[in-house]
């Protein structure tokens, strides 16, 4: 027994050493270099700064006329807008897709599930957005993010509907509830656990999305955080301190989310992945 305990302790120690070396050092490296002055940061060393330059963060905020503030506004608008739309249309569709099974719902299920595998067709999408006059608009971008996350969202809602007993709806129906009331007042509140999973997972995906805003929402006025980060990389390739400070500022929302919802995020990702 004693030998086993010692082995576990050794596992703990080695695990922590390798874990920290491989997964924490890159972030630590970024953090301390974000606080150095330009010359020192450009040496890319893992040493503490000789002078702590908290001013770097201020400089990043002020760069390009507070572009990062605009970018945060845009990213938050995009994330919140898409989330609201996704929850409304996704919960409605997931509900009916699970409860009914006929030709229509089967066809819709198959259609939607292709979206889990196949990537979007970029240029025809731009062509359609131009036709609808919503290319380069936030509204258009929200619709795109919604369309791309609909398969995943519906899948989670449909899976969760399995656990809600159908008797509730029968009782409501007999008591004279309308179809809309049945869903809005009885079913939707019961979907709360999966709704919060969906909010967290989609928020991470949409906030971190770089590719789609790059194609569908170009222009400085519309810049999202990931796009400004990318442009920053080009412009400040010789001042690593500012570059890393920018990365940190943009990563902080996710860090906060993670600290609060650690277990929820992990469970949600497993649920989402396994059901897929």
């Amino acid at each position, binding site marked *: 027994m004693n030998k086993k305990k010692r082995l576990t302790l050794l*596992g703990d120690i080695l*695990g922590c050493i390798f*874990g*920290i070396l*491989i*997964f*924490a050092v*890159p*972030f630590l*490296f970024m953090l301390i270099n974000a606080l150095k002055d330009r010359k020192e940061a450009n*040496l*890319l*060393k893992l040493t503490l700064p000789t002078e702590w330059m908290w001013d770097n963060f201020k400089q990043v905020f002020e760069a390009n006329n507070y572009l990062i503030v605009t970018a945060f506004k845009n990213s938050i608008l995009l994330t919140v807008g898409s989330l609201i*739309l996704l929850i409304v249309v*996704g919960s409605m*569709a997931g*509900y*009916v897709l699970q409860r*009914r099974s006929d030709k229509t*719902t089967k066809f*819709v299920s198959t*259609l*939607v599930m292709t979206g889990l*595998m*196949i*990537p*979007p*067709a*970029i*240029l*025809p999408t731009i*062509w*359609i957005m*131009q036709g609808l006059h919503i290319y380069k608009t936030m509204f258009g971008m929200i*619709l795109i993010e*919604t*369309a791309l996350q*609909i398969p995943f969202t519906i899948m989670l809602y449909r899976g969760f509907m399995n656990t809600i007993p159908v008797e509730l*709806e029968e009782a409501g129906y007999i008591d004279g509830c309308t*179809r809309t009331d049945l*869903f809005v007042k009885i079913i939707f509140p019961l979907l709360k656990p999966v709704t919060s999973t969906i909010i967290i997972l989609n928020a*991470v995906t949409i906030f971190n999305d*770089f590719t789609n805003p*790059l*194609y569908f929402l170009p222009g400085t006025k519309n810049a999202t955080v*990931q796009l400004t*980060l*990318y442009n920053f*990389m080009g412009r400040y390739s010789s001042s690593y301190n500012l570059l*890393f400070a920018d*990365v940190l500022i943009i*990563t902080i929302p996710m*860090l906060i989310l*993670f600290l609060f919802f*650690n277990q929820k995020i*992990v469970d949600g990702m*497993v649920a989402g*992945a*396994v059901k*897929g």
Partner: protein
Amino acid sequence: MNKKKIYSNWFLVPAVAIFLIFFIIPMVTSLFFSLTIWDLKDYTFVGLDNFKTFFGEHSLSISVKNTLIYAFSTSGLKVIIAFFIALFLTSKIRTKNFLRSLVFFPNLVSAIAIGIVFKALMHPSKGLINAVLGAIGIAGPNWLGDTNLALFSVIAVDVWKGVSISTVIFIAGISSIDSSYYEAASIDGATRWQTIRHIVIPLVRTSMNTIIILSLIGGLRCFDLIWAMTKGGPGFVTDVLASVVYKQYAAGFYGLSTAGNVIMFVLIALIAFPLQKFLNSREVYN
């Protein structure tokens, strides 16, 4: 009771409408536009010319090979590495919650941010990785500048970022194995390795299949990490299909770009759908 009355198909309309207009219609029309030269307004039908150009030019066709290398190696490495991390994290160690969070965190950081950090860590002369290698007497290579190595350096970073989700799926799979299997094995005098080989691996097959499919599809469509780290360079050695689609779009060759997009669909359909069928047919139910 009347199902049709309670569950109206009207509930499907908003989701289906958005999905049709912004996903399905572009996908279907891309098949046509890949056969044209167009500028989003007018088009000229050119038949299979775009595809001929694509496979005829080395700088473009190399992306198909790179995409396949990228997808299969990231997927394979994630499965193997994640399995051992998950085994370790489900053992009796005490710091497992801390370690789980540590492994998981990169998943929440955007690919661009990770690309920036690793580009600095992989800097040929002053990067931390080569500094460490130098300290133990190994001359570190030019990770992202060497044409033979660049693709694999990006693959390594992709695995670093994505191994967490695979690990978490494996942990869920391993934790759901009934403890009676282990008890039976230990009564029969099975070694640790035999237990892993004959109990754990067969019973986490469902998790393993999920991970293979997920990471393979992710790898086939990967763009942001590669774009942040190398932009397809040096030369074209790290160009994948998604980066060619972007480059041709930026250069104004919209037909060619769409053709690249269609090749991506075909590749994913040809690999992912049959693979999923094959893997599902081999599952063992717990």
